């Protein structure tokens, strides 16, 4: 799922509240939350903050985001063994990951890329996508 899959209206509707929520979770200024900031490297997020961020986004947007959804979505159609081998993202996996995290500048994808380092790539936009996708699914389920 790339940014082009979302409308400007969808992004504009979600981003302000998302930035506010993430700033609260990370204890930083709202202005620091940009779509492309690295949550870990730029905003000092700890791995456990992702649980907190997802939790807060669920409450704020009244959506359900299953735990582990980002990593599951980032694999796309690939099986686990196609995506990674011995904890390292495969070549096919890297291509899929770059497509999924299209907002992340190419230079941030290091090779070899350990699966454990994937969260270092996450940005606020990664979570923005999750929220919009969850909203769409929820709207679809309600119809």
């Amino acid at each position, binding site marked *: 799922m790339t940014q082009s899959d979302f409308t400007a209206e969808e992004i504009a509707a979600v981003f302000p509240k998302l930035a506010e929520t993430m700033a*609260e979770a990370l204890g930083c200024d709202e202005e620091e939350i940009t779509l492309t900031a690295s949550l870990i490297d730029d905003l000092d997020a*700890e791995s456990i903050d992702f649980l907190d961020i997802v939790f807060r986004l669920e409450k704020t947007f009244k959506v359900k985001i299953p*735990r582990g959804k980002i990593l599951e979505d980032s694999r796309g159609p690939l099986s686990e063994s196609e995506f990674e081998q011995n904890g390292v993202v495969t070549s096919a996996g890297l291509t899929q990951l770059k497509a999924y995290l299209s907002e992340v500048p190419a230079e941030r994808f290091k090779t070899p890329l350990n699966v454990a380092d994937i969260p270092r790539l996450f940005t606020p936009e990664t979570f923005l996508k999750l929220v919009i996708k969850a909203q769409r699914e929820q709207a679809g389920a309600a119809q």
Partner: protein
Amino acid sequence: MGNSQIPMRQSLPIETPPNPTQQRMDSANLLENKAVIVTGGSRGIGRSIVLTLAAQGADVTFLYCSNEAAANETLAAAAELSGTVKAGGTVKAKRVDVRNAESCEQAIDEIAEEAGKIDILVNSAGIIRDNILGLLTNDDIQEVLATNVVGVFNVLRPVIPYMVSKRRGKIINISSVAGEKGGRGQTNYAASKGAINALTKALAVELAPRNILVNCVAPGVIETEMTEAIRQQAGDVVKSRILLGRFGQPEDVANVVLFFASSLSDYVTGQVLHVDGGFKMS
């Protein structure tokens, strides 16, 4: 220099300085205004933990799976207790099966919404299905792991965000001496409790940056319904291997949980403390 110039030690006025720790224990408010969740709180060790923490001022909600009569006994004991301690907190019960992740999430949200926070979580829910490996059924294995391990995850995951958002919290897992000391007929139970010891250490690493402390209390043979069969079948043999020569009481465990729950242990995380009268060492 003669003795006459030095006051004899015995002649000095004897004034024992107050022991700050003892003073704090006596004041019965180690957990004043703390919102606490205890799983498996209707019986045995869990009940004792509920009562011990409430006696120190904590507002405790305990979860229980199905035994409503036992839950009511805990509530009655708490009501009785509130008249005897200075700073007793409130005690409430909630029926939740920890094996069900959705039920846990819903219950935790309700508790947190009412209390406005969750300060302390004690994972005490556990079951036992002892048998030698050749006679263990698949259900014996699955049920023990589902409650004792998956159940802990199911409660932890919805609780942790509330602690992360406050940048503080205490998590105390109850495992067992069986998690480290081999015992015949306990492969399933031992595996589940060893998992909790390992989980405690890994989670302590993950949560330390957000000032959430995770510790584990590993009881030995405690006089509860759960250990009744073991005590009846091999009580004397087991007791002879306990250095202190007696089985433990639920309060022995609850007091150590209190230590981990209170500010007395604010520089301790990732530890597994055996409360077993020296059983593991023998």
